[in-house]
C-alpha cells in the first residue's frame, strides 16, 4: 500500500534522518522525497510503500505523529489514494 508522509514544522537539524530511521525500523520503504523550506517552515513530502510494514497502519500513524510531536513537527501518513482521488481526473 502506497502512502504519503508529510512533515511540516520549523526547520531543524536531523528531521529527515529521524523520520527515515523510524520508517526503516518499521520496514517502510521510501520511494520518493521532496522538500522545501519556506520562511523557516520546513515541508517534506515522502512517497512510501507500507505494504511490508511490520506494524498496522494505524500504529504507524500514531508512532509518526508521536515522533513529530517531540520535535514540534506535524507528521502524518495518509494513503496515497485520497490525493489521487481529489486531484486527478
Amino acid at each position, binding site marked *: 500500500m502506497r502512502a504519503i508522509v508529510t512533515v511540516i514544522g520549523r526547520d531543524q537539524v536531523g528531521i529527515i534522518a529521524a523520520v527515515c530511521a523510524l520508517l526503516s525500523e518499521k520496514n517502510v520503504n521510501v520511494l520518493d522525497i*521532496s522538500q522545501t523550506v519556506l520562511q523557516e517552515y520546513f515541508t517534506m513530502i515522502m512517497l512510501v510503500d507500507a505494504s511490508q510494514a511490520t506494524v498496522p497502519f494505524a500504529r504507524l500513524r500514531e508512532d509518526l505523529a508521536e515522533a513529530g510531536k517531540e520535535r514540534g513537527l506535524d507528521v502524518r*501518513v*495518509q*494513503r*496515497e489514494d485520497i*490525493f*489521487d*482521488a*481529489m486531484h486527478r481526473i
Partner: protein
Amino acid sequence: MINTNDILQTIQMIDHQHLDIRTITMGISLLDCCDPDPHAACRKIYDKITTSAEKLVKTGEDIEAEFGIPIVNKRISVTPIALVAGASRTTDYVPFAAAMDKAAKAVGVNFIGGFSALVQKGMTEGDKKLIAAIPEALAVTDVVCSSVNVGSTKAGINMDAVALMGRTIKSAAERTADRGGFGCAKLVVFCNAVEDNPFMAGAFHGVGEAERVINVGVSGPGVVHHALQSVKGQPFDVVAETIKKTAFQVTRMGQLVAREASARLGVPFGIVDLSLAPTPAVGDSVARILEEMGLEVCGAHGTTAALALLNDAVKKGGVMASSSVGGLSGAFIPVSEDEGMIAAAQSGALTLDKLEAMTCVCSVGLDMIAVPGDTSAATLSAIIADEAAIGMVNQKTTAVRIIPAPGKQVGDIVEFGGLLGSAPVMPCHTGSAEEFVARGGRIPAPMHSLKN
C-alpha cells in the same frame, strides 16, 4: 508523485476548513422482519440491525485512520417502520422504536433513521399507528429519528396528514419540554422524500433499495467558503466555476471512502450525497458562503439568488466526480446548525419568510427552526402545507423540521448541543389558519405530474 501543493491543499482543507465525511450510513431492509407477534418482530429487527451493522463503526474508524480524513458520524437507516409494523397485531408502535434504539446503541452508531411513514396519498392503519406513536417514541429513545412524507409531485398533498403532523409536532415538543422540545429535532415532515438520503433526521431505507447498502454523505461549507475568498469581486461565472471545482474534489473523496467502506463491509455501494451541511463551528457555515458572494448578511435581498447558484454549482461538481450522486445533494440551510444563520436570525436579518423563499432553491427545506412554544398546531400544519406546496410544484424535496419550543418566546435561544446547535426562537405570522387546515382532504397533484 503528486504535486506538493495538491497534497498540502488537501491537508489544509482537513485541518483548517472542516472538510470531512459527514456520515457513512448503512441502509438496511427490515421487510423480512414482519411478524404478527410484535415482540417477535422487534426481536427480528434488533437481530437484523446488529448483525448487519456489526462492523460499521470499526470499519469507519479504520478508514479514518488510513486516509487521515475525519468520518464524523456512522449511522443506520431502515425500511419505514410503518411498513414493517403494519403486519403486527398491536396498536402500540413505541416498542419498535425502542428496538431500533437498543440495536443502534449496541453497534455504536449515533443515529438511526426510519421510524417513518409514507402517506403522500393516503394513510394505512399502520401509518396511523406509527404517527400516533411518534411523540412518545422520540421522547423515550435517544438516537431514533422519524420522518413522514406527506406529499409528492405525483400524488399531491395529503392535507389530513398535514393536519395530523402539526398536532404531532406540537405533542412531540410538549413530551420533551424538559429538553427544549428536543423530540422535534428528530422529526422531519417531507414532500418528495428520497429513498437513499444518508443524512439525519430524514434518512430511511426506501422499499426500492437493496437488502443492504452503503451511502456516504460528504460536506465542506468551509472549503467552499475558503475557495471563494480567492475570487473576491469577480463575476458569478467565476464563482460558479470555483464552487464546481471544489465540489468535485470533495465528492471524489466521498466516492473513495464509500467504495472502500462498501468493499470492506461486503455491502453494495449506493450513492454519494454531496450536501453542504453546516455545523455550529465557526468556519463551517453555509450562510457565510452566501455572504462571501457580496451580501452584508444572510437574509438580505440577493440571498435566494446566491443560494440558487451555490446549490446548482455543488450538484454540477458532484455529478462530474461520481456516477452515483444521489440523496439530497446541494446546500442545507438548518438555522440552529449554522453559525452564520444563527447570527443572521438573531439580528432579525433572516426571517421565516426569507427562509421559505430560500427553500425553493436549496436542497431541502425549513430546517431546525425554533418558533414560540405557543404556536398553534394549525399554524405548524400551515407552514408544512406551504413548504410541501413548494416541493410539489417544483418537483424537489422539501421538508419541515420545526421546534415549537415549550415556554419560549421570540428572542429566546434553545440549546440542543452538539451538531444540532442552538436555535434562536423566530417569529411566525399570527393570522389563523385553523379553518384552512380543518378542511382536510387532498390538494391535487399539479398539471405537470401528468407526464405519461
